[in-house]
């Protein structure tokens, strides 16, 4: 069913939003979905009329589509990193231009608020909804196109709500409070995850220097020194990767290759066995797929994203069985990581992908394994940069957890190394 303005407005209203000025908060970015407007046939003939609040608003005339229906709704969004300090009010005109010349035209480097965004006609014929990413710091853009049927939009937005990705900041204070809390969380975790291991290093090193420690006493100290140093380095590594993906979104996405997710999942599990202490009695099964399933991406980043989720399941789920299942359906590749562990309380579902969130009960009786609370956040961020999604799938059972990676399927022998994900169907 074609998406028209009324339908999309109905979707927004049905989901409890009075207007479409809402924020999709995904990890460290916020996407503002603004109100729809019909697109005009000619850019030059666009006229501007003041709206009720006195702001100028572009009005466009409808374009007749091939089937005779009224033209495309122009549903646009702005994706800001978490350093945004001002809200864009509903009804504002949007910054003009684009950075990806393959799609839109020459890049622009400054986007004063109040300028107008525009999409070429041919692009709108291929995708009905655009989310355009803007980083105020670097003025770079990302783009994610969604399937445009109303059912698909409703499903996608419902998923975002269920997983906690979609939040509606009702006023600027709430948004700033959110940012403030993120900063506090970072301070707390840095203090704990970096300072504690370094305190261990400092203390034991001091005792060894002072002397009077027997060889037998010293051996566990050397182990502790290595462990603590490694832990601090891992914390730095994770934070560094988080920050670099935040501020430099597109720099590592210029070279993408087809990646077989079945093989990659097996490789990730092999690495986990080699690097981590697997709980006794845990049975892990990696389901083999009869066909190779390709997605396009940066292999080491995809490895990292899957590693974080899989290692969480292995170390923290209290599961007896874990199934890792790759597959493909309807033009998408997926990878499920399913465990029969204690599960995640529904009240926490919207929190798990937040930075620095940690399940307060996951470390019970597993002392000394507290992490940064960045793994799931990082994984989701990486997957979204690859045009995919990472979801926490609700379980019917009272326990157990399924994390699902979803990507557009890629053609393995494609020579195009762009970020476009070509559907196989």
């Amino acid at each position, binding site marked *: 069913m074609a998406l028209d303005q009324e339908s999309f407005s109905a979707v927004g209203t049905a989901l409890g939003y009075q207007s479409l000025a809402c924020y999709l908060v995904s990890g460290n970015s916020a996407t503002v979905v603004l109100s729809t407007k019909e697109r005009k046939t000619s850019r030059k003939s666009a006229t501007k009329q003041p709206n009720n609040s006195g702001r100028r608003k572009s009005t466009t005339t409808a374009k007749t589509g091939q089937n005779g229906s009224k033209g495309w709704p122009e549903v646009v969004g702005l994706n800001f990193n978490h350093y945004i300090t001002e809200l864009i009010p509903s009804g504002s005109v949007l910054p003009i231009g684009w950075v990806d010349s393959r799609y839109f035209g020459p890049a622009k480097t400054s986007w004063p608020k109040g300028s107008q965004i525009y999409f070429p006609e041919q692009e709108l014929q291929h995708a009905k909804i655009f989310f355009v990413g803007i980083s105020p710091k670097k003025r770079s853009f990302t783009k994610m196109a969604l399937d445009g049927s109303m059912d698909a939009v409703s499903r996608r937005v419902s998923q975002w709500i269920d997983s906690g990705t979609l939040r509606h900041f009702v006023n600027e204070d709430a948004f700033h409070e959110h940012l403030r809390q993120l900063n506090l969380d970072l301070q*707390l975790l840095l*203090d*704990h995850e970096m*300072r*504690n*291991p*370094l*305190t*261990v290093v*400092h*203390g*034991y090193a*001091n*005792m060894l220097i*002072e002397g009077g420690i027997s060889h037998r*006493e010293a051996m*566990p100290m050397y182990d*502790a020194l290595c*462990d*603590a140093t490694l832990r601090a380095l891992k914390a730095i590594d994770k934070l560094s990767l988080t920050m670099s993906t935040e501020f430099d979104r597109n720099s590592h996405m210029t070279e993408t290759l087809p990646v077989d997710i079945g093989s990659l999942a097996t490789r990730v599990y092999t690495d986990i066995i080699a690097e981590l202490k697997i709980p006794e009695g845990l049975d892990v099964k990696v389901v083999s797929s009869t066909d190779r399933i390709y997605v396009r991406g940066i292999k080491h980043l995809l490895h990292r994203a899957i590693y974080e989720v899989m290692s969480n399941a292995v170390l923290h789920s209290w599961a007896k069985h874990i199934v890792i299942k790759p597959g493909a359906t309807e033009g998408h590749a997926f990878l499920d990581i399913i465990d029969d562990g204690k599960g995640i309380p529904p009240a926490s579902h919207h929190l798990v992908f937040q930075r620095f969130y*940690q399940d*307060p*009960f*996951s*470390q*019970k*009786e597993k*002392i*000394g394994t*507290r992490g940064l609370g960045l793994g799931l956040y990082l994984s989701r961020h990486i997957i979204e940069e690859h045009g995919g999604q990472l979801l926490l799938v609700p379980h019917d059972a009272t326990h157990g957890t399924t994390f699902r990676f979803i990507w557009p399927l890629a053609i393995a022998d494609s020579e195009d190394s762009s970020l476009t994900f070509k559907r196989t169907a």
Partner: protein
Amino acid sequence: MTKNVLVIEDEVHLQKLISFILEKEGHKVTAASNGSDGLKLLAGGYVPDIVLLDILMPGMDGLTVLKNIRADQVNKNVPVILLTALAQENVVLQGIKLGVKEYIRKPFLPKELAARVAKHLGLQMKESA
């Protein structure tokens, strides 16, 4: 004279470091990995001469543990030293209001930790003499 020291700290290597330091001084150290387990020990009849308490722990944080200790009729006056990576003023003030003897900021020198524990054990001994 052997003193009983309760260490409530979620970082296992830090637990071991603190235990090693204080056992070298002749104290008997009992460790708990979270606030809940620490309070269970106290509720089970364990009476420490001093408590070393981490602030930032999963589940129950150190200040909440401290409030519970102060509400415990048997252990309400036990000296408590807070181990902290935080320098936030509000945490310090809350601790002072709850009768914390002092803060030891991480990282600490082993001799510093041993000396401060000895000082507060000595203070206690003087009061009971």
